[in-house]
């Protein structure tokens, strides 16, 4: 009886260590992000502002500029990461994340359409992103139900859907005036620095609901990973469960994309990274934390490291990291096959 206990203890110790490290890195990066800027804030000043005190310009900078960036990084990172983990686990393929298979494009094309053609904002825009993401998710699900070799077909059809939606976005951009198109382009790169407090409140609220639902479907998802037949002989309704996971994954991408734009590759990277950190034993809670850490750190680097006065949109940086990650993943897949 002693051996099982020691393995499980080892697994838990490792998970605990990983969580602790990720939390520390996130806190360190977040407080550095709050401190740095045109006026540097001392730890005492930050604490004062956060607890409702502080003075003048510095208070304004932290509350209207730096803190919203940190909070939207935390929330969007978690949402995109969990969305990626849901799709990757459901489709049993590390490449099948929403940004690769087109769900992210669905959300961004719908948002750009709502933004440019209908002049929407706030909740309406989130709703539009949701519809776009779920529509692509449903299309993918319909194709996925067809037959065997799922992964490859999904990724190929995702690329096709993505290309079509990029064309739609480009069409919309050429049809609007340069200023509006510029704003939309900035959003399309993925940026955490333009979020307003009401937007963040909406994101936080929907995230609480969606993450609770994720915790609810997670045990069922673990059974689906053993195959549809096994899940059904264990008393699950495999079809309904799969629809639920796709809608949930699409919704998580949509709420994040509506606020920060399609942050490149966060969905793709977070879950495989978390799984690797945990020694192969994936866990959606750690995936969420990994996504948060990724975006908070990427935002800190893109805001300050390149010495630009306005900083670099964080999506540029996650795009670069993600491209390297994707290539590594692809070559690993190939060597395994």
């Amino acid at each position, binding site marked *: 009886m002693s*051996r*099982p206990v020691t*393995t499980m203890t080892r697994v838990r110790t490792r998970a605990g260590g990983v969580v602790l490290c990720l939390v520390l890195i996130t806190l360190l990066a977040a407080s550095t992000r709050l401190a740095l800027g045109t006026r540097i804030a001392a730890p005492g000043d930050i604490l004062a502002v956060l607890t409702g005190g502080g003075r003048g310009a510095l208070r304004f900078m932290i509350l209207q500029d730096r803190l919203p960036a940190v909070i939207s990084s935390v929330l969007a990172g978690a949402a995109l990461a969990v969305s990626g983990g849901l799709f990757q686990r459901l489709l*049993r393929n590390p490449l099948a994340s929403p940004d690769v298979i087109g769900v992210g494009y669905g959300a961004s094309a719908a948002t750009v359409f709502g933004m440019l053609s209908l002049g929407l904002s706030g909740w309406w825009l989130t709703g539009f992103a949701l519809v776009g993401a779920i529509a692509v998710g449903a299309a993918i699900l319909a194709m996925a139900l067809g037959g065997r070799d799922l992964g490859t077909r999904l990724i190929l059809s995702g690329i096709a859907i993505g290309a079509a939606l990029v064309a739609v976005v480009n069409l919309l951009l050429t049809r609007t005036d340069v200023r509006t198109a510029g704003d939309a382009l900035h959003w399309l790169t993925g940026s955490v620095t333009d979020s307003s407090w009401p937007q963040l409140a909406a994101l936080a609220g929907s995230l609480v609901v969606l993450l609770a639902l994720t915790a*609810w479907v997670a*045990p069922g998802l*673990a*059974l689906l*990973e*053993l*195959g549809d*037949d*096994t899940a*059904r*002989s*264990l*008393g*699950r*309704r495999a079809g309904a469960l799969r629809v639920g996971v796709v809608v949930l994954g699409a919704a998580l991408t949509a709420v994040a994309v509506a606020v920060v734009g399609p942050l490149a590759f966060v969905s793709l990277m977070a879950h495989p990274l978390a799984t690797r950190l945990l*020694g*192969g*034993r*994936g866990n959606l809670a750690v995936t969420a934390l990994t996504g948060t850490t990724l975006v908070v750190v990427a935002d800190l680097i893109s805001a300050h490291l390149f010495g630009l006065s306005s900083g670099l949109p964080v999506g540029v940086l996650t795009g670069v990291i993600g491209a390297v990650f994707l290539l590594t993943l692809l070559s690993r897949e190939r060597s395994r096959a």
Partner: protein
Amino acid sequence: MSCALTATDLCLGYGGADIVHDVSLELPAGRISVIVGANGCGKSTLLRGLSRLLRPSSGSVHLDGEDVHRMAPKALARRLALLPQSPLTPDALTVRELVAFGRAPYRTALRRESSEDHAAVDRALTATTMTSLADRMVSDLSGGQRQRAWIAMALAQETDVLLLDEPTTFLDLAHQMDVLTTVARLNAERGVTVVMVLHDLNLAARFAHHLVALRSGEVIACGTPDEVVTAQTVKEVLGLDTVVIPDPVTGTPMVVPAQADATGTETLGGAA
């Protein structure tokens, strides 16, 4: 003898033409029933139709008088377990964790793992002699051990009826014996009703109390191995000339192909 599972005029298919036609079957409780037949004759389809994996296009399946396809999924999963042919094993899963999935039908969102679940997992591990391997990763096990781990998962469901779809595929003879003796012991010690699909006629005859022979989705013969495994039935089911002799170890019928060499012209013994 009481019947655990009864199929009545069962027709099964995957949208297109039916693969199993008008099958009526009575599978005895507390015994091992084995379904045999040629490749693609509908063995696995029939087994899926006996559980809720495949809804019949017509006909019905009753478990102790209750219609299987009308029962709530979890309620059925507490009474009937099915181990699919080639289940997927996720990376980095220990045997104990895999077996614990068998407790899923007993869980709800509010009721997670209980001491009864732990006890059931331990019992399933003991019954399949997997206790010493409980801590190993499933992906590191040998084929036979892995199959025993999956059987342990189905056992942890603590059902009266256990359906196994070709539990010995891809295993060498030693591992096939390993898996089948485990199944036979479970049946003898716990009275679990077993229904399984097997390819190997000789092993089927050795381990089955009740044999069902299928050809093109229809039942050709059923009964004890002695009744079913005759040269004539084998010819009907597999289209192969054979000699049936008593198994030197168990005395159960043993099938030997009558064709002696690769040219197919010479035969030893008077087959058909």
